[in-house]
């Protein structure tokens, strides 16, 4: 490896020896192409024409009125595929193409990354396999159908709780056996180096655009930028645009599940300890021995016991704050945005909204907050109906 892939003490590449050549190959290719003129031109064209960038920064007037502060939504939910995930899959997919790979694998939780990978698999003519936990297949069945329609094979993973962690385990095992011809298109800003750096780079368009749009629309930078954090790709994408703006508060919202005290949550930065999982040192939900704990969240996309290494560093340095939102508050926020703006947020993104709802009393009315609306909630309608039958009647 050329670089250590460390963010402070976090990150690194804690993987079996067999995966090292593939990670080295990826690192080399990333640094060779990410600023290459031809690569950047092709990627920007695809981000515009295929994915729909730039996405709007929308002033949510009625939602703002309900909260008593000014809330702008970065509309990543309007991207093709319905989430920010396509920024990364186009980037890595194009990288795979430049590297001459023809087979893709990916893990998915909510199915958004799986769908975004399946889409570009079709776009570039790759042979695509998506690993997905059986619990997630059940709760995100619409996305499973979409992936299959795009020609991807969806491989059910039964181990553990059948969620994102287990999907990553099996994708890594498959990659181990097929490492010579298969590109692993990792979905979040975690995992072994160089993935946290690669994913951050391809998601940094969110932050760059948002900062520029703030200056154009508001005439100043926002007081706070809020994003949900599972592995942390949409959050690091938007935060990256504001890291140098010390007066802008950066707030990451993790999945509080049924509440931190119940132990049924997925808030690794809020309640975890430093550990090593999936190739990276990071805050991790684990027992005293170091066995990884099962997580719980209403949103499949945040249901993960670890988190990206850069977020760990941002927490330690205090540059970003990390909090959690419970399932109940998330469902309230989902309802509030739907009713006030006619925008159904993904349950993942609704965590960021729920945080604002929970602190609205303590914020002055002239506070400006940007929320990364990382995905749309169509995929979650069934879940919301299950938890809140009255809402959809």
């Amino acid at each position: 490896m050329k670089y250590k892939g460390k963010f402070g003490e976090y990150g690194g590449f804690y993987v079996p020896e067999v995966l090292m050549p593939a990670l080295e190959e990826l690192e080399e290719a990333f640094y060779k192409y990410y600023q290459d003129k031809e690569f950047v031109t092709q990627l920007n064209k695809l981000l515009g024409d295929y994915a729909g960038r730039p996405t709007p920064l929308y002033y949510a007037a009625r939602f703002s009125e309900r909260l008593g502060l000014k809330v702008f939504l970065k509309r990543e939910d309007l991207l093709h595929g319905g989430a920010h995930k396509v920024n990364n899959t186009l980037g890595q997919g194009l990288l795979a193409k430049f590297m001459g790979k023809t087979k893709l694998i990916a893990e998915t939780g909510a199915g958004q990354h799986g769908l975004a990978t399946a889409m570009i698999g079709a776009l570039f003519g790759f042979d695509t396999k998506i690993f997905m936990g059986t619990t997630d297949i059940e709760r995100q069945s619409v996305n499973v159908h979409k992936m299959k329609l795009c020609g991807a094979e969806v491989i059910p993973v039964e181990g553990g709780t059948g969620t994102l962690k287990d999907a990553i385990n099996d994708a890594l095992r498959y990659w181990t056996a097929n490492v010579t011809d298969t590109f692993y298109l990792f979905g979040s800003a975690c995992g072994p180096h160089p993935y946290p750096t690669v994913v951050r780079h391809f998601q940094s368009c969110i932050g760059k655009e948002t900062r520029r749009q703030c200056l154009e629309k508001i005439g100043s930078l926002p007081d706070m930028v809020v994003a949900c954090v599972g592995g942390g790709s949409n959050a690091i994408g938007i935060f990256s645009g504001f890291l140098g703006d010390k007066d802008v508060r950066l707030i990451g919202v993790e999945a509080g599940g049924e509440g931190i005290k119940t132990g049924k949550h997925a808030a690794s930065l809020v309640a975890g300890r430093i550990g090593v999982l999936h190739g990276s040192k990071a805050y991790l939900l684990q027992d005293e021995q170091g066995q990884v704990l099962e997580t719980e969240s209403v949103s499949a996309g945040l249901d993960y016991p670890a988190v990206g290494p850069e977020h760990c560093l941002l927490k330690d340095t205090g540059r970003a704050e990390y909090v959690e939102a419970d399932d109940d508050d998330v469902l309230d926020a989902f309802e509030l945005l739907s009713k006030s703006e006619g925008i159904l947020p993904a349950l993942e993104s609704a965590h960021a909204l729920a945080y604002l709802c929970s602190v609205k009393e303590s914020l002055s009315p002239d506070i400006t907050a940007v929320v990364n609306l990382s995905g749309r909630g169509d995929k979650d309608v069934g879940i919301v109906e299950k938890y809140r039958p009255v809402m959809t009647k």
Partner: protein
Amino acid sequence: MTTYKETFGKLNRAALIPFFVIGDPDFETSLSVVKSAIDAGADVLELGIPFSDPIADGPTIQKADIRALNAGMTVRKALDFIKRVTDYKSIPIGLLVYYNLVYQYGTEKFLKDFKAAGGSSVLVADLSIDDSDEIAGPAKEAGLETVFMITPVTTDERAERIAEKTTGFIYTVSLLGVTGERASLSNMVKPLVTKLKTLTDVPVCVGFGVSSPQHAKAIAAAGADGVIIGSRIVKMIEDNLNDKQKMQSEISVFITQVKSVLE
């Protein structure tokens, strides 16, 4: 404690190295099984501490990890287990462990306690040579030997660096993939062992997918110093969970068979 050098040096044949998950399916049964494997002729033991997310392992060892964890295995108990084994017989024990368990216990303390229990070497499944400083220094300090993996896709340049850092033996992964039984032996074994033998003098052992006495024989014929058999044996535990007598005897018979083809 017997060192690997002594062990491999004394044998005029390939060493037989069975692998077990410590505490599979429970502490006492696991201990009896390991003891009977020693009695049946194991030259070295490779023991694994169960982990919740063993990414280098296939379904058979994943299930064994879950059985052991459900039966209450902890890192502390695993070290006690090793002590009980070395009390029974002085035999080199290589440990296979995932990094988070070592890290949470405290790397230096872990290695010291493992050494005190009679262990010989530690192989961290998810720590490559690039991060070997986190383990190699403290391991040497504790008086342990180092074992690292080399796979069919390891470049010659990496293989040389790995061999340099290895004092115990090179764990040669015979195929691309995770642990698990395979019908036929990987055709990568022979060229890989031949190459490693030109690179280094440290013993070269071969594991992953070794499933029959015939496989073991072919590995020995390829010039390897040791044959590691894991999933095939762990499967015998899984298949006989309701009959511990049969579990033990099947494993003993299998080890005796493999031993006889190596002799």
